[in-house]
């Protein structure tokens, strides 16, 4: 496993995950394209059994690339 992949595996927060994604995309000069077709997600309000859920419905495309650090 590469060093970059190790870093992504070790992420514990969303910002760290974003940094890992940035490094991976920058290293490869790549972009990520997500295409959603009528995708439904139940977003829980917490981790307990009695957590309420917000219902998200996604349809469309999103493309992520990197910018240079200023």
């Amino acid at each position, binding site marked *: 496993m590469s060093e970059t992949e190790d870093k992504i595996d070790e992420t514990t*927060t*969303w*910002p760290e*995950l*974003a*940094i890992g*994604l*940035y*490094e991976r995309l920058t290293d490869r000069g790549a972009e990520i394209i997500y295409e*959603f077709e009528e995708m439904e997600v139940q*977003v*829980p*309000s*917490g981790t307990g059994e009695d957590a309420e859920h*917000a*219902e*998200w*419905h*996604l*349809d*469309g*495309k*999103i*493309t*992520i*690339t*990197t*910018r*240079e*650090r*200023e």
Partner: protein
Amino acid sequence: MEKSPLRPENVSESRDNTPRAPLSVEADLVIRINGATAELESTGERLLVQFESVPDTLRAVQSQPRELVSSLTAVLQTTDLTVEIRARNRIVAVAGANARPGLVSRFIGVDPIEVRLSGTVGAVSAEMRDAVAGIFG
């Protein structure tokens, strides 16, 4: 300063705001949150979430877990991205890198989200104007 329930726990008051992972996003997406529909478009560094009405905006925002809002804000700051929430073509709130939450945000407990009072008033006025026109027009 009073601690905001929406402030990311991993973002301290004195944190370095330099974006560590600036991303660019192109989006053409329709999102429906608990029945409230919004279109998501992007200009690269700025994501525009356009709701059809003020009640739709409130329904979508209020249904989000606070942990999700906190995590999203931290990610937006790290990636130098800004989300503009619009209702009736007016900016009612801003989150992320270019958000400048002020007294209003702190007073209503949505810091670090910036509330745009002028946009909110404009959107509500447009909503009421259309409602009156619907009744008497």
